[in-house]
């Protein structure tokens, strides 16, 4: 009985083994895919300037430090994830035992993750400090793209919006917005294009004015009788404020007055209030 249990255990162990060796081979395939499709980025060699930098097993503050690179050591920066840099120490051709206890040359490099605060103090090949910093307020002033999600009210109906904007200059940007509104009697979908003017791009609380137009589709609720969908053009003016929060994140609040150009005798004016979070680049 005990024997068969052991047997089962070993089969279980073996199958787990198999699955994970498969995953590990996926690893190397992944390395290939990376170099094949995302290979345009450079690997940068730098020299450690401070007494040491700490290398961790993963890109996070909780992962254990397993190695340090000392002052004067050369390391390669392979890639970056959020505030963490994957670095590889450079080998000096020492011999090392591999998995099958064979001595192989030059495999004594260590690869680990280093925090941006430590990477920021390394030197380049000309002994010059390199400029690595966290995204900050200054990047907000010089943003060229932004994208975000907003929620609010469109004439009393709940509304959510997705938008993206591109800055032609610091003051002028163009935005595309897709909105969906959810009312008691009808739902709406709208796509708009706006020109946005930012008179004070170098303020942390940066106001803006916007002008644009688009198209709006109104779908009456399906439980109402004899109604049809309709599509109207619309124009809008608005104003709002972008507020830098932290890193690449900003808060955005805005008001727009839409005029929906309906087929009926009167055009329809709608107030829209929204607030949301955006990332900028």
């Amino acid at each position, binding site marked *: 009985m005990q024997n068969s249990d052991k047997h089962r255990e070993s089969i279980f*162990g073996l199958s*787990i*083994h198999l699955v*994970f060796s498969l*995953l590990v081979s*996926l*690893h190397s395939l*992944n390395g290939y895919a*990376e170099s094949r499709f*995302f290979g345009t*980025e*450079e690997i*940068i060699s*730098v020299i450690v300037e401070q007494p040491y930098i700490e290398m961790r*097993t*993963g*890109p*996070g*503050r*909780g*992962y254990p430090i397993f190695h340090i690179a000392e002052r004067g050591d050369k390391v390669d*920066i*392979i*890639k*970056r*994830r*959020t*505030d*963490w*840099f*994957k670095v590889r120490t450079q080998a000096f051709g020492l011999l090392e035992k591999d998995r099958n206890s064979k001595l192989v040359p030059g495999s004594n490099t260590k690869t680990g993750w280093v925090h941006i605060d430590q990477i920021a103090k390394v030197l*380049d*090949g*000309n002994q*010059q400090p*390199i*400029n*690595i910093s966290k995204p900050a307020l200054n990047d907000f002033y010089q943003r060229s793209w932004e994208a975000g*999600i907003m*929620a609010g009210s469109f004439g009393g109906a*709940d509304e*959510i919006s*997705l938008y993206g904007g591109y800055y032609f200059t610091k003051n002028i940007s163009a935005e595309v917005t897709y909105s*969906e509104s*959810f009312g008691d009697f009808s*739902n709406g*979908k709208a796509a708009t294009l706006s020109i946005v003017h930012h008179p004070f791009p170098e303020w942390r609380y940066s106001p803006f004015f916007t002008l644009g137009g688009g198209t709006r589709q109104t*779908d009456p*609720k*399906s*439980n109402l009788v004899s109604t049809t969908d309709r599509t109207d053009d619309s124009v809008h003016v608005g104003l709002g404020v972008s507020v830098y929060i932290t*890193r*690449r*994140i900003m808060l955005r609040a805005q008001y727009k007055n839409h005029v929906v150009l309906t087929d009926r005798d009167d055009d329809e004016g709608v107030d829209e209030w929204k607030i949301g*979070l955006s*990332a900028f680049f």
Partner: protein
Amino acid sequence: MENRTKRVLLTRFLLASAALIGTLQFTTVYAKEAVQVIEPDIHRRQIKIDAIDSENFEIGVFYGIISIEDFSSNDVYGVRGTYHLTEDFFFEASYGSSEGDLTSFEKLSGGSPLLNDSDREYNFYDISVGWNVLPGEVFILEEYAFNSALYLVAGIGSTEFAGDSWLTVNLGAGFKLLLSDAIAWHIDVRDHIFDRDTFGADQTTHNIEFSTGITVFF
């Protein structure tokens, strides 16, 4: 005979020297040009930090089961993209698709169905904010250690079902296991909550999705 040999050798020698002089001259010219090209103020190669491959985006597919309130459970599949802002926080966008089955009432009564087939299609999208609340590492057997994280997400979006769109709040938790630096395996549980008045009165529905997926960082 001897003279002839001498003459041949001489000719060859002269030709060879001419060729050599030609090459030398060419080399000199080349060298002169080269000297002009290399100017004393050497342009230092600036390290551009943007050149480092940054992998803050994650994209992938998921597949699972969603329980559509009143319309039984069905398989759900979709795509999901994530932007990692810091090691703790991320933005996430999903689009998924499923289909509502017959309600118990429709099955038992045997009458005409409440919804036609196209209205039974269940499509949703949402944008959420996520928090890696329990980052960590997972150990499997003796050889394997994988980075992992338990995360919470909350967001808003839209669900298209029963002929209308509904403003949808989604709340959920997930677990991701990083099989490598660039590939992650996810298990997710999400509640898609929306108010629906398909059957007359407004009713808050909870549509729970249980799914698994693979994502790639780039």
